[in-house]
């Protein structure tokens, strides 16, 4: 077995530098790498290009990186619900690249799986297709999309073992599992880190080969963005 454990969040982030491209798992505030984000927010590092579905809220999630002006370019899909992000976007402090969410997921998965490019129908006929090759297959139009290239993938999983095997929980799986192994370095924080053999090999969502470093995070807040209850 190959051990992927590192003692803490600082060692997990060893080698990260200003100006790098980061992938961040999570959708809204669900399944976000809280410890990794907080540590980067407090660091002197900056000028990151971030690839993530959303931008968090003002004071939590990816929002912390905007609050601390760590981001130069944001590649995302839905970027609402964050006033500081909006301010930086409108004042042109940051560059924003908007991508259909399924295309974003597939560009991560392509990077993970060694597929350099693929065709998708999403965005054909829209401004997303500008400058991209259009091709017909079976009389439907598709556009060519390339795999992302990133330096670090910052991932949150529910359970993991020392070999880097991961299990996600509920809809916190989202972009986390498709970003593992999609960057040069994949760093994972888990709620519970277990010795090898504790996870059923049939039930592993992401094999450890896609993970470079794993550690158990602390003090998870797991905030709920939009609490909605059944009206009885």
């Amino acid at each position, binding site marked *: 077995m190959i051990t992927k454990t590192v003692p803490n969040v600082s060692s997990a982030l060893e080698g990260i530098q200003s100006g790098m491209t980061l992938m961040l798992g999570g959708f809204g505030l669900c399944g976000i790498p809280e410890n990794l984000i907080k540590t980067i927010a407090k660091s002197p590092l900056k000028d990151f290009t971030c690839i993530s579905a959303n931008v968090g809220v003002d004071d939590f999630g990816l929002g912390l990186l905007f609050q601390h002006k760590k981001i130069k370019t944001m590649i995302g899909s839905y970027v609402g619900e964050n006033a500081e992000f909006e301010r930086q976007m409108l004042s042109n402090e940051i560059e924003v690249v908007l991508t259909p969410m399924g*295309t974003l*997921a597939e560009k991560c998965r392509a990077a993970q799986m060694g597929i350099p490019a693929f065709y*998708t*129908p999403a965005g054909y006929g829209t401004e997303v297709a500008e400058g991209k090759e259009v091709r017909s297959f079976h009389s439907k139009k598709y556009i060519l999309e390339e795999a992302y290239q990133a330096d670090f993938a910052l991932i949150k999983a529910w359970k993991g073992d020392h070999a880097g095997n991961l299990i996600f929980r509920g*809809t916190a799986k*989202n972009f986390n599992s498709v970003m593992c192994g999609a960057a040069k370095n994949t760093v994972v924080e888990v709620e519970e880190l277990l010795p090898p053999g504790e996870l059923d090999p049939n039930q592993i969502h992401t094999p450890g080969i896609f993970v470079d470093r794993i550690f158990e995070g602390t003090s998870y807040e797991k905030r709920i963005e939009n609490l909605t209850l*059944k009206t009885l």
Partner: protein
Amino acid sequence: MALDKEGIAKRIAKELKNGYYVNLGIGIPTLVANYVPEGLQLEFQSENGVLGMGPFPIAGQEDADLINAGKQTITTLAGASFFDSSTSFGMIRGRHIDLSVLGAMQVDQSGAIANWKIPGKLVKGMGGAMDLVASAENIIVAMMHTDRKGNSKLKSKCSLPLTGVACVKRVVTNLAVIDITYEGFYLKERAPQVEVEEIIQATEGLLIVPNQVPEMILD
């Protein structure tokens, strides 16, 4: 009488068929889940990675790891499953989702839809909408017939940046049910007590009006 949002949702619920996997967008589309005809086997997908969504949780049962694409807390029903975003949009792109219901700013008579960007205004991004409209077998748009200023949202050609082309099959508004055909918009049903003339006035694109336009049946 023009429909309210609940009325639009009720009418769209009539489009649900047995065995449908359905993706409901944010806004009016979400309300459709409240009017599923009894006896139908259906599953609701949310593109952030869940199939088999149930009602919202009761207080104390909410779970930060269980949300829908609108970031609302949810529950799941027996037979539910969770999956990653690549698989989720694979379901959509691979046409495994039978019906997608979305809101829109504009729809035009060629079936193009604009629902994500107003130049000069704050852009929040397309989210999953471009994947959904490029892929789903049936796409129904739920929207008001006109905007707040009274401008028609059913255009001869969308003036806003597009979300997708030649994709919308049917539009349900507060005034009418309108199909997109090769010839243009086709007036299929009118809201209860709404006159055909009012619908014609409120529609900018080419509207084909048959001799008989039945009233919607909502219940």
